[in-house]
């Protein structure tokens, strides 16, 4: 590896977050030029804001990376039904802890971003759907909304204009699936968060209460404010084409300095993140694998080579350290940047046990609505759990892979893929360890299989 200067963070979203003198009070936010972009927005036409967001190329930070401006364009404005805006603050993807930084430390940034977005899409009612475990976060948001309302940044006739938009914080009840946007909508409607079938229930057409609805991630909505500040054109120059803006990466696992780091998209590689930004691995350990975008993304093996053609036609040949941290880098390497949750694993990790851990999560969180995910996720959990209890069989690796393949692409929502991809990639890349387990210790007592 060629030694370079440690890449420097570029904090836009988290600009103030860790400033000890900064607080989540509105007075502090206003002192830092807060809500000036909302004022600017109200001088523009709603469509103009949409245009700026489209031009910015900003992609969703919730996991799928869909361009926000495009999503807003899909909104069915002809139906005459009310339009809703929902901020997805369910942040439950294992390995992800970025949205909470914003919510806890700079809630007004989110509120400002949301009010601009609400104005742009002409939503008169907005919601923040926050995960149950963020009870303090919910309280902070409630306070911040009350402050914003008292200053007329939110609620009736915002800034004396004709535009009104109420903002409500809705707390989840502790289910990962509430992060899936249609599950979220069901939950917000007061029902079980069973994701909806698409078609026909695309949120932009038939969303909350069967009305056109936009669901965006916390970080995505904060970006709206910054897009307005510098203009879509200028924003699109941050990062790389198709990978604009900054991203907050959440690094966890076996590094010296786990944490959240905000960088311009593509400003550094995975290797630089691990070794330079996060201080490298623990003493005496070697890198074994990295999950680059939250537990749902496919795992990357440390000694793999990643080759192929980039979108712009250039060939690439990367080791794991060379993968650029943006949207397209991890995707080119066969995984995804997902929610930005980078989970680093060193040579102390037993891959079957790691797999068992992940499978336990998905089996526990599957909503249970559709057959493949419901039954497949629990089956995979049972297999890996058994394998870790000394009863692995030679055929288990193939069986796991087959079960995962029977889930992928056949479910109502993307949870199916989220549950299948880890297994598929673990088997593809660490099959040896799964097979090793089967050889095991022949003296070990075996469970009675029934």
């Amino acid at each position, binding site marked *: 590896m060629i030694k370079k200067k440690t890449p420097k963070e570029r904090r836009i979203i988290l600009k103030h977050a860790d400033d000890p003198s900064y607080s989540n009070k509105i007075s502090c936010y206003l002192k830092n030029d807060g809500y000036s972009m909302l004022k600017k927005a109200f001088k523009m036409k709603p469509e103009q804001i949409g245009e700026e967001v489209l031009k910015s190329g900003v992609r969703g930070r919730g996991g799928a990376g869909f361009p926000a401006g495009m999503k807003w364009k899909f909104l069915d404005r002809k139906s005459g039904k009310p339009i809703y805006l929902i901020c997805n603050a369910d942040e439950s993807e294992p390995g992800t802890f970025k949205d909470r930084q914003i919510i806890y430390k700079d809630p007004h940034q989110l509120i400002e971003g949301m009010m601009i977005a609400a104005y742009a899409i002409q939503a008169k009612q907005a919601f923040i759907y926050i995960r149950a475990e963020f009870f303090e976060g919910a309280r902070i948001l409630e306070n911040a909304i009350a402050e914003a309302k008292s200053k007329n940044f939110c609620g009736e006739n915002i800034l004396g204009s004709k535009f009104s938009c109420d903002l409500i914080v809705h707390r989840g009840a502790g*289910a990962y*699936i509430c992060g899936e946007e249609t599950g979220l909508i*069901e939950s917000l409607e007061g*029902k*079980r968060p*069973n994701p*909806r*079938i698409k*078609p*026909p*229930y695309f949120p932009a057409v038939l969303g909350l209460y*069967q009305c056109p609805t936009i669901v965006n991630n916390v970080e995505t909505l904060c970006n709206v404010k910054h897009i307005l500040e510098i203009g879509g054109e200028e924003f699109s120059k941050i990062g790389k084409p198709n990978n604009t803006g900054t991203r907050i990466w959440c690094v966890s696992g076996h590094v010296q300095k786990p944490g959240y780091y905000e960088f311009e998209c593509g400003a550094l590689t995975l290797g630089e993140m691990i070794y330079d930004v996060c201080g490298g691995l623990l003493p005496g350990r070697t890198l074994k694998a990295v999950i680059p975008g939250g537990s749902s993304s496919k795992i990357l093996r440390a000694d793999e080579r990643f080759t192929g053609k980039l979108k712009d036609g250039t060939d690439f040949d990367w080791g794991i350290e060379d993968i650029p941290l943006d949207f397209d880098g991890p995707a080119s390497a066969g995984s995804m940047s997902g929610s930005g949750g980078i989970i680093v694993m060193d040579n102390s990790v037993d891959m079957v046990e790691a797999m068992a851990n992940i499978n336990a999560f998905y*089996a*526990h*969180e*599957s*909503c*249970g*609505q*559709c*057959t*493949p995910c*419901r*039954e*497949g*996720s*629990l*089956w995979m959990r*049972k*297999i890996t759990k*058994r394998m870790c209890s000394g009863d692995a*069989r030679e055929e288990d690796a193939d*069986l796991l892979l*087959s079960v995962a393949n*029977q889930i992928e*692409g*056949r*479910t*109502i929502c993307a949870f199916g893929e989220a549950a299948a991809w880890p297994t598929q990639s673990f088997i593809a890349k660490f099959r040896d360890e799964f097979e090793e387990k089967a050889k095991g210790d022949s003296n070990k007592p075996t469970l009675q*299989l*029934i």
Partner: protein
Amino acid sequence: MKNGKSSSVVINLDGQDVEVPAGINLVEAASLHGTEVPHYCYHPKLSVAGNCRMCLVEMGTPMRDRATGEAILDEHGKQKIGWIPKPVIGCGTNVSQGMHVKTSSPMVKDSREGIMEFLLVNHPLDCPICDQAGECRLQEFATDYGRGYSRYVERKNVKPKRTRLGPRVTLDDERCILCSRCIRFCQEVVDDDVLGFVDRGSFSTLTCFPGKELSNNYSLNTVDLCPVGALTSTDFRFKMRVWFLKESSSICTESSAGSNITVSSREGVIHRITPRRNDEVNDSWMSDSGRELYKNVTSEDRLMKAKVDQEECTLSHAIETVKDTVDGKKLGIVGSCHSSLEEQFLLNKLAKITKAKKFLRGHFGEDDGILVSSDRTPNLRGSLVSGFSSRYPTDNLESLSKSLDKNELDVLLVIGEDLLASGIDLNQLNGVTLIFAGTHQNETSKLAKILIPTLTSFEKTGCFINRNFRVQSFKQAIPGPAGLLPDLQILSALIKSLEKDGIHRPDLSSIWKEMGKSSGSPLKGISFSDVPEDGLLIDGSKWSHLEFVEKKALNYTPARKAQKSK
């Protein structure tokens, strides 16, 4: 669609171009052309949930250039098909012009095998004792589309085996495949939202919401709907293997709704009544109360023996005695809206030749807004069409009461009704000879000089005309009690004995021929065999001046039209 409005489209189904109605889904479209797309959660009368994933098929649409909108052609000049790389659900995918569908490609087969395997991994091996066995979708599709072997060596989930959901429905949660049909039925058809799932993932369990129970009058439809043996009828549970049952088409006699039903019997004993789909009448549903009616067949108060002067006798002797009693007397006939169209016709004929005065009463109740209508008889309209009555009956026998007061009647032939419960006083009957023909005992039958036991609708064949003026036939499901005859034979024997050229053959086709002859009859030109399984709508406009109690509720419409997925 060429003009965007055409009512049918051409799709390519497994390589064959076929025409199908626009807007229908792929499960329906394939079935119209004889191809089964296996499905569990989809039900034609409920909203689409798309959760079982059994109906996965491969689908593609003709490709167009994104920018120009022009068709993209292949080397043969045919429009290229953009196949979706993942299978799509047939139940949730609607046909469009030029759509291509594969229902048995390797991808589809693999999907089905996968789904079947998943459905079975935590399914108990209850078939030998399961009520559903023999009519179980899980068994059928496992045989047709499953792999035939198991790769599952883990422990199966354990769930409650006998949960009482309500007075009539018992749930075995282990057998539930979580298709949500029962939940959607309660929400969408009955508007009684009591069922739901608790827990997540594979531990999801169907249950009633706290403090609620599945006790609405349509609860047993969930048992029919359930593709597996999870929801069972507490009444039918463990009583009978379904493959022994003989099925006969019939009509529910509970009200003028005339729900189409299937009567399942074995060796002359009825074991259950289930709804028979008729989209014009009852969709796929019927009331719980209607299902209980078969119990009347063997109830204690059933009339089994003919009697004259309280002495048991043969039926022919009783009929003979009727003739002697009636001849030359002032006769009154109290008909019944429970009688079939044909019976009412013969009764009217009898009235004509005996110059009898005719009386009829109705039985009314609350309309439940679903399939129990205000008119609690199956054939009030039959009394109009048959000519027995031209007026709309009230819920008593006022005019009979007047006639009795004026001593206009010597003999009264009563079909099934209880005079004493119809505004007639015991004193008024002094000096009147009573003849009672009916299936069950009542206060009037006890007073009768001549008692003629008749058959229930399960034991004979005929037609009812429902609230919509739909003629619907019911077929004999079981033989009647030994020694009894169908009402039609009794009536025609009476007619024969009182008039020389009466109908000599009491068979339905002769009766229908004769009915069609009466002037102005909406049955003109129709024969009994013309009445199809799903009934025949006739013109009732002749009676549009009558104040029918059903008012606007002539048709059943589901409580909540399926506008939402869940």
